């Protein structure tokens, strides 16, 4: 989902920057508010940012398709540090990946933030909240959130590319063409991300439940 420089039109880049800003601003306020309540939130947020940086740069080979791709980790971040805070984390992570790893682009930070930090993370977060509200067990809610959040990230990336480049081809057709470029490799990784999201939340629940204050609806769920 790391769209590189020179692919999207300048208008598209500006649009996605503006769209991402709409979510980054409340994210900054959410972080400030949470830090006022709990100073320990700040180093915790920094560590989650590091985790997202590593996870979203960790290319895993998928032998079935003969290519490599990476999970995102933003659904997990949205669940444990908050949905809008994870948008800020994603923007920072994508900036550093673009500047120092050549992964993604500077002009496309807005588009990449929108796909990874907003569409993927918020979809996963909403699914998590919805399934927990329906009294689903943690493994199911976290697993579905991780799986769908990952796939949604790549679907929105495909949409961003198609929206800018579809020309005379119908938008949804072009979108599906790009998504089918991602999907064969990404589906196994989305399953892996689902397992990873469940494992991390279960481990945090058993070892450090104090870090999940306000995350779980019921104590000991």
């Amino acid at each position, binding site marked *: 989902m790391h*769209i*590189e420089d020179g*692919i999207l039109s300048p208008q598209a880049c500006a649009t996605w920057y503006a769209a991402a800003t709409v979510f980054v601003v409340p994210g900054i306020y959410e972080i400030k508010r949470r830090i006022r309540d709990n100073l320990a939130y700040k180093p915790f947020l920094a560590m989650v940012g590091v985790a997202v940086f590593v996870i979203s740069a960790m290319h895993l*080979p998928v*032998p079935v398709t003969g290519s*490599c791709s990476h999970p995102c980790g933003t659904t997990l971040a949205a669940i444990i540090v908050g949905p809008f805070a994870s948008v800020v984390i994603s923007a920072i992570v994508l900036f550093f990946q673009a500047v*120092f790893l*050549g992964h993604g682009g500077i002009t496309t930070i807005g588009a990449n933030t929108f796909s990874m930090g907003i569409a993927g993370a918020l979809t996963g977060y909403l699914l998590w909240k919805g399934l927990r509200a329906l009294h689903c067990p943690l493994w199911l809610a976290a697993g579905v959130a991780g799986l769908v959040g990952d796939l949604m990230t790549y679907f929105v990336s495909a949409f961003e590319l198609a929206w800018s480049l579809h*020309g005379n081809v119908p938008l949804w057709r072009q979108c599906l063409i790009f998504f089918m470029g*991602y999907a064969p490799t990404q589906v196994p990784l989305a399953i892996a991300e689902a397992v990873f999201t469940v494992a991390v939340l279960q481990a945090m629940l058993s070892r450090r439940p104090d870090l999940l204050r306000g995350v779980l609806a019921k104590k000991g769920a």
Partner: protein
Amino acid sequence: MSASIDRIDPAADTRFFDGYTRVMLSVMFVILMFIFASGKYMSAHKMEATGTDDKVNNLATQVTRGEHHPFIDLPGDAQVGAFSIANFFAGLIVGHHWTRLFGTRKVARDEEKDA
């Protein structure tokens, strides 16, 4: 300071190969084995093992009919050098502002008050 050193149990302090470490090492080895096995398989079947992001970006480039380049691009290991330099100074600056960013420990504050 000496009182706090006295409280450390040397036997407990050197048991670093605990359950958590064993689980983490096991998970790491399983993932690494998967990566090596996948790499071997892809190499044997002459698969390129390139990134999916690159594949789709190149597919998109066919639509735009123009090559795409990173906004900032450094050759070879210069990129690693730039990353290391930036990390080094970022670490120094964050360390310099550590207490301002993350606050002081309660024990340190109490000691300051006593002094």
